[in-house]
């Protein structure tokens, strides 16, 4: 009871839509170039004005960690502190509760303490002698929030603190960690020395003052601790990250080269880098904070970009192997149109999710979604306007009439032609099957008519509708059976 009415679909992109992607590529490439320039300029501008190309978060740049104890009865919750910090302009700050100590909150900010060299010299002079105790060592590691002292006898800690405060190093003095008992060469402890640590108040006092101006005077009982912290992303992690990105690019290149064709590989990589760079550029331009979550977002964009590009390339590969005699620009363009509805659908659905989180989310989630939105937009666009033109350019520039670099020898034996459909080379009949590496030797029958592919497709389809018994035939098999490898004709 065959129903012969054609199927009806709900479609966004009508079949037969022909947008001239390839023809108009230069317009879009120039848009990309402009965007890349804007990104690069923002990075340079930020470098010049703020000393850092991106607004690096505490994850990268380090900062300070202040543990504040709020007064009993003060109606303060962590959300209020977060809002207050944001309003006060502490960018990239975070506040977390300390659940076991009901009214304490740990605040992390990017600002750090800094002490002038001259102040340090004065401070050192001030504590050369404290009562009976003689100063053995005075050490202030760069940017640290502590000064490490060592005396030969136990000093009066309060006195040390008072003397230092007088010289400009305000902080609380306390018995320091010994840093390990000094063990002499004989394995016995050395004559005892008395370490003292000065926790500089600096940044803690500022945060307290600022917060109290927002939350009300007296809400903060005292500063439990205020210290400088280093970056979470150590140099190790940074080199690891860069290394992994380079390796990933290398392996993707190899995969695309073997699975598709060498001339597809650069396009995928360029599109991927283009997308990642524009996302980073968007962060530079908007001055949004760049942190570990942003890295994750950039990685997501990279994953999405290559995925999207490969799907498009897959169709280009298929089209090109079907229409070897048509100009490659045309086949590529129709491949792009074929996949257009899929490209848009996928991007739109993913964008819907990400856009919802952007609109409704807050804080880091919002920034994260922002990165993804930018990435999805440029990722979709780059598959069409960056990856494909690069592929065409590589094909024309390096491969004009030469066939597959890696397969050149095999092609000669097989007598196949080239991906470049309309290059007439009398001696070379047949065509390269883009999937040649899969071991599907093209038939290479040079005498077939030019439009055999179309005919073949129909024939196969007809054969199939007859043999519906359920025998499985892959499209690949169909193509194999199909008269293939039509000759080069004008």
């Amino acid at each position, binding site marked *: 009871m065959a129903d012969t009415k054609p199927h009806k679909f709900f479609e966004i992109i009508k079949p037969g839509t022909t947008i001239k992607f390839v023809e108009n590529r230069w317009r879009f490439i120039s848009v990309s170039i402009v965007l890349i320039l804007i990104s690069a300029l923002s990075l340079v501008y930020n470098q010049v004005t703020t000393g850092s190309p991106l607004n690096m978060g505490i994850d990268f740049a380090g900062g300070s960690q202040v543990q504040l104890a709020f007064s009993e009865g003060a109606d303060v919750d962590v959300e209020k502190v977060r809002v207050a910090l944001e309003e006060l302009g502490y960018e990239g700050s975070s506040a977390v509760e300390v659940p076991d100590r009901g009214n304490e909150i740990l605040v992390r900010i990017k600002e750090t303490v800094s002490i002038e060299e001259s102040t340090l010299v004065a401070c050192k002079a001030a504590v050369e002698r404290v009562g009976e105790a003689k100063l053995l060592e005075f050490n202030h590691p760069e940017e640290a929030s502590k000064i490490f002292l060592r005396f030969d006898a136990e000093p009066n800690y309060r006195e040390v603190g008072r003397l230092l405060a007088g010289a400009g190093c305000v902080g609380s003095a306390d018995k320091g960690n010994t840093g390990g008992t000094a063990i002499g060469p004989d394995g016995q402890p050395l004559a005892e020395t008395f370490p003292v640590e000065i926790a500089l108040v600096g940044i803690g006092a500022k945060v307290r003052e600022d917060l109290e101006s927002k939350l009300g005077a007296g809400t903060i009982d005292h500063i439990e601790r205020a210290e400088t912290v280093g970056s979470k992303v150590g140099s190790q992690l940074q080199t690891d990250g860069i290394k992994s990105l380079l390796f*990933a690019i290398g*392996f993707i290149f190899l995969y695309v080269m073997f699975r598709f064709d060498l001339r597809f590989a650069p396009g995928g990589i360029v599109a991927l880098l283009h997308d990642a760079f524009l996302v980073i550029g968007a962060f530079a331009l908007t001055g949004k904070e760049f942190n570990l979550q942003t890295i994750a977002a950039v990685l997501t964009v990279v994953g999405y970009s290559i995925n999207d590009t490969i799907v498009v390339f897959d169709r280009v590969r298929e089209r090109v192997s079907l229409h070897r005699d048509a100009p490659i620009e045309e086949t590529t363009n129709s491949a792009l149109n074929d996949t257009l509805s899929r490209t848009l659908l996928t991007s739109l659905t993913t964008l819907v999710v990400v856009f919802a989180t952007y609109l409704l989310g807050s804080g880091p*989630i919002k920034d994260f979604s922002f990165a993804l939105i930018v990435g999805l937009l440029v990722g979709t666009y780059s598959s069409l306007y960056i990856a494909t033109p690069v592929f065409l350019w590589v094909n024309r520039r390096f491969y004009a009439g030469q066939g597959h670099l890696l397969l050149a020898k095999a092609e000669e034996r097989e007598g196949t032609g080239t991906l470049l459909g309309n290059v007439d080379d009398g001696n070379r009949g047949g065509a390269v099957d883009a999937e040649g590496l899969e071991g599907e030797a093209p038939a290479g029958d040079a005498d077939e008519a030019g439009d055999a592919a179309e005919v073949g497709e129909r024939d196969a389809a007809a054969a199939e509708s007859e043999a519906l018994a359920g025998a499985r035939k892959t499209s690949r098999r169909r193509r194999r059976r199909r008269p293939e490898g039509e000759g080069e004709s004008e």
Partner: protein
Amino acid sequence: MRRFLKLKAAALALLVVWAVLTVLPSLNAIAPDSIPLPAWITENFQNKFQLGLDLQGGLHLEYSVAVDEAVQKKLDQVAAELEAGFRTKKDLEVTVAREGNDTLRITFPSPDDVATATPDVLGVALDLLERVDPDTGPREADGVITLRMPEAKLADLRRESVGAALDTVRSRVDAMGVAEPNIYPKNRQLVVELPGLSDTATEVRAAAKDAARGLTEVLQAAGYTLPTEQEVRGDPGAFKITIPAKTGEPAIDARAVIRELFADKIVEGDTIVDDRITSELTLLEPDAELANDPSSVVLALSENARAAVLDDAGDFRRLLKIIERQAVLSMHLVDDETPFRDTGKPYLKALYEGGRVTKGMGIAVNRLTDYGKEAGVTVKEPFAFYAKERSTLESFFRSQPPEWRLPGDLAVFYGPVSVNTKRGAEPEIVWRTYMVKARAGVTGEDVMSASVQPDPQTQVPQVSVKLNRIGARQMEELSGNNVGRRMAIVLDDAVRSDPVFNERIGENFVITLGATPGQSVREAANDLTKVLKSGSLPARLEKEFEIRVGADLGADSVVRGAKAFAYGLGAVILFMLIYYRASGFVAVFALLLNMVLILAAMALFKATLTLPGIAGIVLTIGMAVDANVIVFERIRDYLREGHTARAAIESGYDRAFTTILDAQLTTAIAGIVLFQYGSGPIRGFAVTLLIGIATSIFTGVLCTRLFFDFQANRRGFDRVSI
């Protein structure tokens, strides 16, 4: 392809059920009691994923790095190199002694030899130290060269050792898998934050609460009304039980009541071991405040119970132990021969015969059997001191007056040994002394690799260590010159074994391990290899304090984010249903199944879900939708070309499969590389991405096809709603 459909459908249904059951306990742990789960689920599906630091907070630990120790170790190393340099290049026996944190003194046999100290031998030291001629102490004219480290260098070295400690800790954490902690430096400290973990006090308090509840239940069952429990300030593991007297009756002696109730369950005087109470409890002696109030009694968790609480607290506690472990490995030559000062006897023998060891110290003196080798040295009458506790021995040696102290080149080390104290009784672990050369012959820095291997005779796991070229050369020299002597293998300040050199040995040797409470030998061996591979910490880590911290992201913003995600997902689902009609249902099913499968896989791996991890999930959702879109668009293409529905579905799936596979595999390559080389959050992202790729191929291609095949098997099937 359209065969065994029922079987396949059944398998799919089973998978769905399994995945949902695996995910449920994790969701329950995140939002407790939101979905009451029957016990059989929680018991059978114990693996859970958990939320990362950014989503739920965790434990914040601060370790101070013993930087000065690292500096001293560095100087000792330089000293050894200097001595060796003078020996080989100038044929001169000099002694190099370290003083404090920043000074080395080279003492020459005669003042004339000072001239031999040319830059080619001193070179190893001059990177770090400056040659000075001090006003006080011995001078160069006396045959002593003084080398001192400038302050700036000292500061550099300290900073470096914090950095090195950080790298080591990070690589150890990465070796343990997917915990995703935050690790960052702070002054001379390291901060380690682990997700989802409570601090010790909280864990102990919770255990004490449980035990207290058990105890009051027992008391109530025995007829005492309303016993009250109260936390004791200062000790989270202690609580006070008060048993009120019934009206008109005399006050109850709570202590006596408890003693009576648990009469046969009390061991070692005052520890209650009873199944009805979750942990062992110790009855504490009444303090001044309680003496007047016999109706109250204070109980506390026993030491055993506290240790058990922390051991149970899961893998992260084990991770902490691994982080804290210094893993300093060194090999020292045992020296039972060198006479002590003018006594003519080795140190321990001299101490013993000099009457320094007396009864009541808790130290046993043993004369060990002679050891040695015909080809080499034979050591006669070695002595060793034994004690139950290491501290007993340590304080004994520390309390010796200066005339009984060891010279600088020798040292006393300690190590645990198991001894049969009584015939037929369980062997007991006691500590003994080892007399060794203070300077290590070979150090752990020269370890190239380590692996767990069973002892060929006993099959007990042991750690086999391979040294690099430098270490192998040192080891050869050490063993070659000392055949017949013993070598003490020292790990983290304790001697693990002291084999005799039977012959010259090279790069390989083994470390045997004893069982420690709460850890099997195999586990101990595994942990040790991980630690040895990641390198030793440059200096000891001392835990300064721990606090629990809340989430980076406010609960509020997590909830809002989750809501937004749900709305977005809802919109996608709606869109798919409109766009693909009936087939849209199939796609939506695949999408939801994909999410459940990702979460189930994460629970199985006990992975940690962080914001970057969620990014991975969003990406895979995009790709899962994409897989369906690719398939459906293909099918539409074939339908438009006039193929029958069956043929279109077959070809559509087949052709789309290669496309999807290519796209996903390319993305997977990125994922694998990121997992391999990345660390921390990058790894977390890679894990969810890889899981997502696997599940989205599975759901997008295989699962959805099942639905179409079911339709296609119907007689007269010729239209598909797509």
